């Protein structure tokens, strides 16, 4: 266990730097700042720009020392518009590699920090590379799941130099696990059990729509169940016909769908008589989900969904594969998309966080709308009982439904939520009845929002919303949570893993103009070389983050009210999703300057890390 999983969930005392509700500027240096200045930082050299209280600042190249530092000498880059420009270039405050350095984003309290988890996409540890030729069929690397292949028949193989007794006598050895299916070689079909499963579903539909009414006979008192021989015969004949048709349909569907990997494409062919072939470039894969609905869990089946950026019907769903085959297919597609050979074993992962059930439940309940609805429900119940007022049902029932929707449904959906990182992406596993395993490859997360409802802020909790380009329509609502409830430090660390090389809390936010017609005093925005951050929300605070490399366009809008006040809003556009980043109510000239600088940062970020295909074999430009 390398991650913080084994550790207590780090309930983070009300946050070293409670971001002041009036949108104040974070202190640029000094130890209370959460993501740095920790006693456990191993390297405290002068090259690190955020180390503890600094002497009156003698590093003029520090580009992030905040807007109004107490030491605003004329040589300081941020002393005003007339200040000297900082040298632009790779020497950002977070290291040159775009990868957080060890110990940099430590929790704000002085606890021992969990072992550092490297950003996914960057893999200094090297078990995940081109496979070495092993002696068994599957390639071997330390920690591989596959044991060496033994001959299935004959006397047990005795390895030279090893005592034979660990081997049970012949006939008693557990069967070796079947070799994994190589999806990159040959043509494949779905699991054979999908044929009977589909036939069964068709039979159920038949029975409900046709079979059951056939069993009913009209009697004097209406329809009744009267099993006379002729009724039974009629039913049996029709049922047999329907059964044959259902089995044929199931077989047909199973035979019709075939898929294989051809070069850099995944090819899916559907249909026996009329063939429909879809060719999907693997580099377009945005995310891969392995979903196991409750029914298929019984049969150890799983569905694999490949998400592509391209709208409502652009995903490919393989319903259903065997459980292990689904894992293998997922691993192979990700390996191929990463530019590795398809038979590369599944990338190892490091757990980051597991949401305890109590945290999830408490987090879902401790929200103002939920508490309000709950009170409304209780009051309406009291009224209902005390005054025998049946009309109060009209209040109680919607309130109850709302509670189910807001608390019970997410609780069932996000139970056992675990986050892990691996070189082929962020892996999420969750679900009580229907389990999901989501994998988002590196660079596919478009934008992230740290959401802190009012009560959660007191507890130091946060939720992480995410925009991934693949999920459209209904699936977007289902798959846009990166963390349902967790200590804020964990959320911030996860953002640093998603957008390597920076931290949300390290970005100095500047409050919006005081002239804005809003009660939202949390409005603020800031940027560094990697991300653009916009914060807003008075009660429920949102901190929306987008990487410059992912920005699609930058917009400046002025509505009529803002026009009177000479204000503007800057939008940094992401693909459609839950998180959209906008810095509201900036001064007009400042807003335009933000637009220009954001466009320029996006340009340079794209030049270095814009291309996200073949992430494993691509040479990072910084290295």
């Amino acid at each position: 266990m390398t991650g913080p999983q084994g550790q207590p969930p780090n309930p983070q005392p009300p946050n070293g730097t409670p971001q002041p509700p009036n949108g104040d500027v974070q202190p640029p240096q000094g130890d209370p700042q959460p993501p740095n200045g920790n006693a456990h930082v191993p390297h405290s050299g002068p090259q690190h720009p955020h180390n503890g209280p600094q002497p009156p600042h003698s590093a003029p190249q520090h580009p992030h020392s905040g807007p109004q530092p107490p030491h605003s000498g004329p040589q300081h880059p941020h002393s005003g518009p007339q200040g000297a420009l900082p040298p632009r270039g790779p020497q950002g405050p977070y290291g040159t590699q775009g990868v957080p350095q060890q110990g940099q984003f430590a929790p704000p309290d002085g606890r021992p920090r969990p072992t550092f988890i490297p950003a996914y996409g960057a893999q200094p540890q090297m078990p995940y590379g081109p496979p070495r030729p092993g002696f068994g069929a599957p390639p071997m690397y330390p920690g591989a799941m596959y044991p060496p292949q033994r001959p299935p028949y004959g006397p047990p193989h005795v390895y030279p130099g090893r005592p034979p007794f660990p081997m049970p006598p012949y006939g008693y050895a557990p069967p070796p696990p079947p070799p994994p299916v190589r999806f990159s070689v040959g043509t494949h079909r779905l699991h054979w059990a999908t044929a009977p499963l589909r036939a069964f579903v068709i039979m159920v539909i038949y029975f409900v729509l046709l079979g059951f009414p056939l069993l009913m006979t009209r009697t004097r008192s209406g329809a009744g169940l009267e099993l006379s021989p002729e009724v039974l015969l009629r039913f049996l004949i029709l049922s047999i016909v329907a059964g044959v048709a259902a089995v044929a349909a199931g077989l047909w569907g199973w035979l019709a769908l075939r898929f294989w990997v051809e070069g850099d494409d995944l090819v899916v062919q559907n249909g026996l008589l009329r063939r429909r072939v879809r060719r999907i470039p693997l580099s377009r894969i945005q995310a891969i989900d392995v979903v196991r609905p409750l029914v298929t869990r019984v049969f150890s089946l799983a569905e694999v969904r490949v998400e592509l950026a391209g709208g409502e019907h652009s995903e490919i769903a393989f319903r259903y594969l065997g459980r292990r085959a689904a894992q293998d297919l997922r691993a192979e597609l990700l390996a191929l998309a990463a530019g590795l050979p398809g038979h590369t074993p599944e990338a190892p992962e490091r757990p980051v966080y597991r949401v305890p059930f109590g945290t999830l439940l408490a987090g879902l309940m401790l929200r103002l709308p939920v508490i309000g609805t709950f009170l409304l429900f209780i009051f309406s119940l009291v009224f209902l009982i005390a005054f025998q007022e049946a009309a109060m049902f009209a209040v109680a029932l919607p309130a109850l439904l709302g509670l189910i929707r807001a608390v019970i449904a997410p609780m069932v959906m996000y139970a056992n939520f675990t986050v892990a990182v691996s070189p082929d992406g962020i892996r999420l596993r969750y679900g009580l009845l229907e389990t999901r395993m989501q994998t988002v490859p590196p660079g596919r997360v478009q934008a992230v929002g740290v959401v802190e409802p009012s009560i959660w802020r007191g507890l130091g909790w946060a939720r992480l919303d995410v925009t991934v380009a693949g999920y459209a329509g209904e699936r977007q609502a289902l798959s846009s949570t990166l963390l349902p409830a967790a200590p804020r430090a964990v959320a911030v660390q996860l953002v640093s893993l998603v957008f390597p090389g920076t931290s949300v809390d390290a970005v100095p936010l500047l409050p919006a103009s005081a002239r804005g017609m809003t009660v939202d005093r949390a409005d603020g925005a800031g940027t560094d070389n990697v991300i653009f951050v916009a914060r807003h929300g008075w009660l429920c605070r949102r901190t929306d983050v987008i990487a410059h490399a992912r920005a699609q366009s930058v917009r400046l809008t002025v509505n009529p009210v803002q026009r009177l006040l000479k204000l503007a809003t800057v939008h940094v556009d992401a693909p459609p999703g839950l998180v959209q980043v906008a810095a509201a109510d900036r001064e007009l000239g400042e807003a335009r300057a933000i637009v220009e600088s954001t466009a320029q940062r996006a340009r340079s970020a794209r030049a270095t890390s814009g291309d996200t295909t073949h992430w494993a074999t691509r040479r990072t430009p910084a290295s």
Partner: protein
Amino acid sequence: MYPVAEQQEGAGGYPAADAFEPGGGLGWSRISPRYPWHRRIVALLRAVAAGAVGAFLLWRGGGTVAAVVWVAAVLTVLVASWVVVEFAYHAHGYAEREDDLIVTSGVFSRRLVVVPYGRMQFVDVSAGLLDRWMGIATVRLHTAAAATDAEIPGLPAAEAALLRDRLARKGEERSMGL
């Protein structure tokens, strides 16, 4: 002031008055002067239809005064849009910069979109019946973000085709996935 602003050369000197200028010494490329007339013809056709149908229904309903008021209201809206269209024409503009296209529009709510060439997914040119008769077309840029919505209406048709080809070429040179 703003750290974003200062790391950009010359950005600190962005006066509020120039917030909707293309910058970099460029000027806005304007759209065709036929565009306001296109809008006016559309407005006139709509006003005639709405005024006639509404007035007829009201008159049938027995309210002669109401019909007159309705016609007056439609006329007012028509006159207002006649004037506003002129402002809208002057508000539209686009400029092709080195790495991005910048488009501005809007009279009451102003907007300015910066679209990097590398982010364009496709560019389309559309022209309706009236547009074709007047020899103008609309160029629309699509990125992966639906909110981008960069649209240049009322370009002369030939210029629209040229602009589309230029944008497509630049987009291809700098293209990258999502």
